[in-house]
């Protein structure tokens, strides 16, 4: 089964979603990510969704949930690179991901985690 790779950079985990997200893949990612956070003792998670140009309410909620789970495990999550059309769709769906930190691209996301002293 297809899986989304999780890269480790020191205390940081980098997830780049480059394929079309479907529900099962999203759930598998949640599983993988939570176990990797525990295993690697990660303090920060960066989810890059710049290649994602279609989202539905499930994927939107899943992104929010993943961030919440990571926070419970004491890893700060930043969602980076959201496309304008995706942002508009999520807002129209009523999913403002209010608990999730966001940044325009990976570089700014890293900077954000660095200023917070996370990594």
């Amino acid at each position, binding site marked *: 089964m297809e899986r989304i790779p999780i890269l480790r950079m020191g205390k940081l985990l980098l997830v780049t979603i480059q394929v079309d997200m479907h529900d099962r893949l999203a759930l598998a990612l949640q599983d993988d990510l939570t176990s990797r956070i525990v295993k690697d003792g990660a303090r920060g998670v960066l989810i890059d969704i710049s290649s994602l140009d279609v989202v539905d309410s499930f994927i939107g909620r899943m992104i929010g949930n993943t961030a919440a789970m990571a926070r419970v495990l004491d890893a700060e999550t930043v969602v*980076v690179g959201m496309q304008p059309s995706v942002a508009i769709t999520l807002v129209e769906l009523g999913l403002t991901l209010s608990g999730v930190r966001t940044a*325009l691209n990976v570089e700014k996301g890293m900077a954000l985690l660095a200023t917070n002293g996370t990594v």
Partner: protein
Amino acid sequence: MEMVGGMRLAQLFTNNQEQLLAEWFAQQHAIASRRGLVGEAELRNQFAQFVSLLMAALGSSERVDFKSPAWQDVRAFLAEMSTQRARQGFTPVETAMFVFSLKQPLFMRLREALGNDAATLADLTLTVSTLFDDLGLFTTEVFQTSREQVIVRQQQELLELSTPVVQLWDGILALPLIGTLDSARTQVVMENLLQKIVETGAAIAIIDITGVPTVDTLVAQHLLKTVAAARLMGADCIISGIRPQIAQTIVHLGVNLSNVTTKATLAAAFVIALQRTGKSVTAGSAQDALRAGRSSDGFDSLQPE
């Protein structure tokens, strides 16, 4: 009830064209000349065209049916006339009178021609009356449609004109909103803003609502949506230009703006934005400013903290 008498009516028009024109013209001239928009010659020309088309359509069949293909030319003529008058600034009534002015003269001619034959007179009167009602309503409909087209076009133009996104500084965008925010405009504003955030890599967007006349719950909701969408892209929003009355309205309506930074003026918001991006404005001597202006593009006069 079937409307009959097409041939007879066509005959009536042929016999009395001059007289009908004179009587119709007397009524129409009063309207058209008051407006000063349609010349006498053009009016006569329009009438001649109208009557000849009308006669052709009436003569084509004994049954009078405005919806049938035989009336296509009459409809096309009336549509053009109504559209033209709508553009020239006639009222709907004045436009419909183009048709209705002919009703009274026509009834008088009918009575003269068929004074003794009460049954035929009644039949033809009904036919003429119904037909002219249809014609009149048709002109009004076309008139209305063409006016609506004008309104739609203006709305679109307004939409394009009124949503600029301005770059205030490196990484700081301003979005001066002018006029009421409805759903369609919010959509355009949001798209423009997000696109600009991607292009410039801006970290802060200032939404200035000085030009928004009223903020009700719907407008506030639209604002919050825009703020949420910008945040998802990693940009913080500051809402500025909140007038005292608007602040009062927002609180009275119970709108919750506590998650958004708000400032009374664009200047105050700009200072906050500079602080958050780690820049500050320092006062220098006039000579320094002059030198800085000569040697750099202006961005450098701000010192990173």
